[in-house]
């Protein structure tokens, strides 16, 4: 092979390799997880419904609405004790109104804000701040009971978005510049 032909062959080889790399990269990029605007809205709605389900103990104090916001194998991890509830029955028990309890359809307490949502290979992850407030009679006055943030994993099911895992982390100061790792 002459030097000229060899140069052309080498140039062609490099060009084909470069083009292949560009195509593979573009394919990988298109496979990056994404969420539609409606996905974001539906996940926001899921989290908004959480507060009502927990504060009211619906339906009729059984906690069944709360449990229904999770996947059947969903998990809640909560508080400084690291209490774990897994599955519909244990989850419902978290929201159930105890005999003689005062929570009802008009009770409010969980004020959830600053909802960040990110796509993930499994569906989506998210986090929010919580201020838990306790009000006096007829909603007057009140005090801050606790605060912190949630770390969530969401899964899109046939019935819509559901919590696959939700963890509450109480507020606590610590070394500056550190953040909790995303949920796994």
């Amino acid at each position, binding site marked *: 092979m002459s030097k000229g032909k060899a140069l052309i062959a080498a140039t062609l080889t490099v060009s084909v390799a470069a083009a292949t790399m560009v195509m593979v990269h573009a394919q990988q990029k298109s496979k990056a997880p994404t969420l539609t605007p409606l996905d974001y809205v539906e996940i926001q709605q899921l989290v908004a419904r959480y507060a009502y389900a927990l504060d009211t103990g619906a339906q009729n104090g059984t906690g069944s609405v709360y449990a229904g916001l999770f996947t059947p194998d969903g998990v809640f991890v909560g508080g400084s004790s690291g209490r774990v509830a897994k599955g519909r029955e244990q989850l419902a028990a978290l929201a159930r109104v105890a005999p003689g309890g005062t929570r009802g359809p008009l009770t*409010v307490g969980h004020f959830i804000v600053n909802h960040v949502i990110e796509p993930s290979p499994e569906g989506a992850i998210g986090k929010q701040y919580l201020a838990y407030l306790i*009000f006096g009679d007829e909603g007057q006055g009140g005090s801050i009971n606790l605060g912190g943030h949630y770390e969530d994993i969401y899964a899109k099911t046939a019935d819509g978005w559901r919590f696959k895992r939700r963890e509450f982390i109480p507020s606590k100061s610590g070394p500056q510049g550190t953040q909790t790792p995303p949920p796994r």
Partner: protein
Amino acid sequence: MSKVNVLAAVLALGVATAVGIQAQRNGRGSAKPVTLTAEDYIEIQQLVARYPYALNSGANNGYVMADLFTPDAIFCGRAVLYSQGRDQLAALARGRRSGPAYTVHFSTNHVIDPSPEGATGKLYLVVLDIGEDGKPSSINQGGHYDDVYVKTPNGWRFKLRNYMPSNWVPPQPCAPRPQR
């Protein structure tokens, strides 16, 4: 074909057509479930977010708040049990402390559901008395709103807003009053 047979055929065709039209009408509701687009959700969220600014500022003598509602809309509350129409709604935003920098109504947990009329919604409210001039801050009250939204040529508006303080039993249901 005899005249009787022709008449029977025409009658059968007529009945079949009528049944078909009625089935189509009946099916319209069930075949096409009520839905909202992502843009509808966002516009309703924006409507609700504008409410505290309009109420707390008392802008334009309360009419900025009143114009978030339809002209015939109703507001039910605890301090003023029932208000209807633009002037009464504007008065709600006037008869209180207010100002362009006044911020006391904090709302969250906004649930929105499509409805045949447009949409319904609910959200939590906490009213904070933010201390001024070095005075301490405190929680004034809390509860939730039950809303009805309708889509007008000017965008989504409140048709009904019912404020229910936490664990409060209202003395009367929030509903349109009979015309006098």
